[in-house]
């Protein structure tokens, strides 16, 4: 019975892990072996120059930096703004808070795909086309951050109020209560918000191809599709090398921290 279960799971695993294996091995195959028949599970010859070529064909280091710093700013900004708003909507009584919460929640119904045309016009008017501003501002305030605000609010609502009351008696102001008492308790929710915000920014594709037009400003998802020869044919081994460099660091972080990763997402996602 146990062996049957292991067997079933191993078969089911193939489409989940084989693409990553194929990406890694194909990234070091010479172009002549890339469509070899029968397919090679292990490269018959190694060509490590594919990795150098990635940097020759594109300003890949610059593009890597673009994606990394944009994702860092979006993640930090979303964590700050969504935890502040989530805390206020959950714990502070102020006139109109329910109405304002409804206004923010409306953002969940409006993915940026719906508003991409006016967003393009707005950023065009502000002279921000072919800059990274749209890739930072739209995610920080759009649907993903609204979801983050919702998640943080649900978390703060469930916190017991005694600690805050004690802090108030001691004369702490709202900001200090938020910063010193509530926020440290919210680490699991913040962790989940950080993970899905980072992945969202890291994967963004429609916004970059609408807003960004010069190679030096490209983000990784955009850059990955650019490794083609003079006839528009894909240079598969170089593309796989670029894909490997894009995928591997995040995958490594995930495998090291997978427990916090998975459990954080599970516990936050459940409280919908």
């Amino acid at each position, binding site marked *: 019975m146990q062996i049957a*279960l292991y067997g079933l799971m191993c078969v*089911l*695993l193939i489409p*989940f*892990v084989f*693409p*990553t294996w*194929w*990406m890694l091995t194909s990234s070091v195959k010479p172009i002549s072996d890339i*469509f070899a*028949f*029968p*397919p090679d599970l292990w490269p018959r010859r190694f060509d490590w120059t594919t990795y150098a070529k990635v940097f020759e064909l594109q300003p890949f280091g610059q593009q890597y930096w673009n994606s990394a710093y944009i994702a860092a700013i979006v993640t930090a900004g979303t964590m*700050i703004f969504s935890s*502040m*708003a989530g*805390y*206020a909507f959950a714990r*502070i*009584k*102020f006139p109109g*808070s329910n109405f*304002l919460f409804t206004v*923010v929640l*409306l953002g969940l*119904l409006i*993915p940026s795909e*719906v*508003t991409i*045309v*006016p967003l*393009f*016009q707005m950023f065009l008017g502000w002279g921000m086309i072919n800059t990274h501003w749209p890739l930072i*501002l739209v995610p920080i*305030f759009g649907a993903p*951050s*609204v979801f983050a605000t919702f998640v943080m609010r649900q978390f703060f609502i469930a916190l017991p109020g005694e600690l805050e009351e004690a802090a108030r008696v001691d*004369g702490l*102001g*709202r900001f200090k209560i938020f910063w010193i008492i509530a926020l440290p308790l919210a680490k699991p929710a913040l962790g989940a918000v950080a993970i899905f915000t980072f*992945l969202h920014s890291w*994967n963004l*594709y429609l916004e970059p191809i609408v807003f960004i037009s010069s190679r030096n400003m490209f983000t*990784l*998802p955009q850059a*990955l*599709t650019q490794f083609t020869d003079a006839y528009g044919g*894909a240079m*598969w081994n170089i593309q*796989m090398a670029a*894909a490997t460099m*894009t995928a591997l660091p995040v*995958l490594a972080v995930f495998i090291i921290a*997978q427990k916090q990763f*998975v459990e954080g*997402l*599970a516990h936050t*996602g*459940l409280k*919908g």
Partner: protein
Amino acid sequence: MTTATTPRKRPFWTIERRDAIAGYTFVAPQLIGTVVFVLIPLGLVFWYSLHEWNVLANSFNFVGDANYQLLLRDPQLPRVLTASAIFSAGLAVLNMSLALLLAVLLDQKLRGIVVFRTLFFSPVVVSLVAWTIVWSFLLQNNGGINGFLQMIGIQGPNWLREPGTAMVSVIVVQVFKNVGLNMILFLAALQGVPKELYEAARVDGASAWKQFRRITVPMISPTILLTSIITIVGSLQVFAQIAVLTQGGPGVSTTVLVYYLYQQAFQFHYFGYGSTLSILLFLIVAVLTFVQWQLRKRIVFYEN
């Protein structure tokens, strides 16, 4: 606490007033950001949809409901909506059932189960375009998948270039990418079902399948509904996968609504008609979300 020592003279800065200031300050960045980058653009997209606007010709004329008339007559639109419906329905059904199967398997008490959980989840953290490009490479006519099929004597189709298989490919690539998320949510829900229920059922002689149908499914139905909302609304936003794998083809067989809207607005420069398509997308998302929240009230058996 100044109020306690001087009870007759209430200070201007009462707790209520301070809280109000703090509350507005705390929500201000998110609120203003959402208004500027989400709600105002939604208003603008409706305004644009009432105009004939060709960026190249630099024309912007009020035309009333002409774009909506065009929407009804657009011969491509039924095919685009069909493609969207097939994609979303196929994705939701495959994703939810595979996620549930994997969650049930991962819920077994087996050695090394965490390794399996990690591996099934791993595509979620792989860059979306990297994942899609690798599958595009695998699905080429002379690519890896057809190579392996040929080894066992099967002539595989040209997956991304034939109408039937192109749609299946796009769905399957997306399912394997993201099913790990729903799997984890289901797994957490399964682990929250009280074990006594199963023991009682076993005493009554209920089969494993009956236990699954009568205990597991009702107990995790809130999670099933929540994840189905997220999955279907998410599936309507699919863009990168289509752009990388098929560019909407062959023909328009994989041109989903977002991809069509992108083509109309940013490839053909019809901003007015593109905005009309945006309104259609918004209405579909809104109606689906509303219907599912209504269903949530009716059919969910158990909610904590």
